[in-house]
């Protein structure tokens, strides 16, 4: 379980997270939505302990970083590291021994090639595979569906369902609403560093409608497309 109390984060004088309070329970999948720059990634980095912050983040078990699989929106890879070595590096870091990595390569990635030669989607799948093989209790997936092909999208959706069944806590951010509506128990909307709305499954459709109305408004008409 993750409990966040009065979490604030400043970059210089700019307050990017404003007194956030939230609880994430075991066996639940949470979606975080918001515009670019709303504070989603900063929130994830604070939970992971990659950023200093004001307020409290209480986790069980602790420290969370030893039980957290963090999928970054843009995973970083060394120039000449192969896919297999990347997985091994992340598993070694958590003292997890995977004797046959190839057998666990469910996305059929070319593990003996340099990760830097992978496409955007392949990089995402590699990073996801690595954190899954770490065997974590918590998962923060920042844009897991970005750049990923349709087949892998289905696989990732199934993985999230499986993680939920295994009583893991999963927090996902995505700009594709449909990917959240089929995986999440709750969706929280963040705007300008604050949670402005939280909805459960049965209200997802209404939230999507509301988002369309408030975010799109008459912007398309302004284009004057003919």
């Amino acid at each position, binding site marked *: 379980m993750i409990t966040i109390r009065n979490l604030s984060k400043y970059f210089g004088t700019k307050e990017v997270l404003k007194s956030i309070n939230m609880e994430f329970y075991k066996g639940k999948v949470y979606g975080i939505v918001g515009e670019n720059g709303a504070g989603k990634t900063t929130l994830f980095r604070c939970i992971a302990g990659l950023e200093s912050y004001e307020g409290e983040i209480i986790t069980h078990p602790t420290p969370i*970083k030893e039980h957290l699989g*963090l999928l970054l929106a843009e995973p*970083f890879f060394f120039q*000449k*590291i192969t896919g297999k070595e990347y997985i091994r*590096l992340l598993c*070694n870091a958590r*003292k997890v021994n995977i004797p046959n990595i190839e057998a666990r390569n469910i996305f059929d990635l070319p593990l003996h090639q340099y990760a830097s030669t992978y496409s955007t989607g392949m990089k995402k799948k590699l990073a996801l595979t690595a954190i899954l093989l770490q065997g974590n209790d918590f998962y923060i997936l920042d844009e897991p569906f970005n750049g990923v092909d349709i087949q892998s999208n289905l696989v990732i959706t199934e993985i999230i369902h499986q993680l939920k069944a295994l009583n893991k806590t999963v927090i996902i951010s995505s700009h594709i609403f449909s990917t959240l509506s089929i995986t999440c128990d709750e969706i929280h909307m963040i705007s300008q560093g604050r949670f402005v709305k939280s909805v459960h499954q049965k209200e997802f459709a209404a939230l999507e409608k509301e988002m369309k109305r408030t975010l799109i408004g008459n912007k398309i008409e302004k284009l004057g497309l003919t």
Partner: protein
Amino acid sequence: MVKAYFGLQYQMLHRKFRDAQFNPWLAYLIIAIAFVGFSLLLFSKTTFAPYIYILTAFAFIGNLSASHRTEFLEICYGKWQMQKIRMLENLICSIPFFTFLLYQQYYLAGGILLLLTVILALINFRTTLSFTIWTPFSKRPYEFSTGFRNTFYLFFAAYTLCLIAVTTQNFNLGAFAMFLVFATTWTYYLKPENEYYVWNFSQKPKAFLWGKFRTAMLYSASLAMPLAIVLSIYFPENIYLLLLFFALGWAFLMFMMVNKYSAYPKEINLFQGILIVVSFWFPPMLVVLIPFLFSRSQNHLSSLLK
């Protein structure tokens, strides 16, 4: 157009020095002194210096011929201007090597270097190879696995030098080969990794640093041991000297590692740079510097390795 390009490069280079807290002109002076110093040392130690020199210049200039770089320049400036820029870049970079070769009266080597400079300006290298270079260090990534792939040719050069040292009964050359092996591994600890890779470790800073050092000792030993064995067979009278080299090699490896993490997550700056110079100038300083930097590294890593 060409002038604007080099103006931009000049600004970027100066920015890089300033970010590392170096006065750019002071940095140029230090680099020039270091270059002349190492060149004089190299040419005084071995008759193979011109070959090593050309190889070093080749590796240095070769980096500029990376295909993604050349493609970018061509998109921005067109083919003709791109080739002009590439030619000028290569000439600027090869001038120090070329001048020193002429000073040492190696005219043929100078000519070869000049020819390579021109040829390299006209061809592209694919730096993202379609094949993966094998590495013996893939069990415990990443420093040695990625580092070996970038520098494997230097180990071939070192082993070749060792064979030459044995056949010519030149222990100094053999010692230089061993230095080359260790010095190459020290460079694996010059750049800080992305913080995600440190954050992932479920270890406290002390255990993290010792773990890294154990791997570095094991892997560097596996590279240097063949040389040490061969040299100790052919030069048994120098076995204690070889043991000392080994110990120094490891000490500097540890030093370079803690030096990097003492500035982490930033790149090594002026302070760390001075410490490197001081330690090479007077190696006994390592006895004080390693524990000091180890402690600083622990502090710098503590926010990520709680």
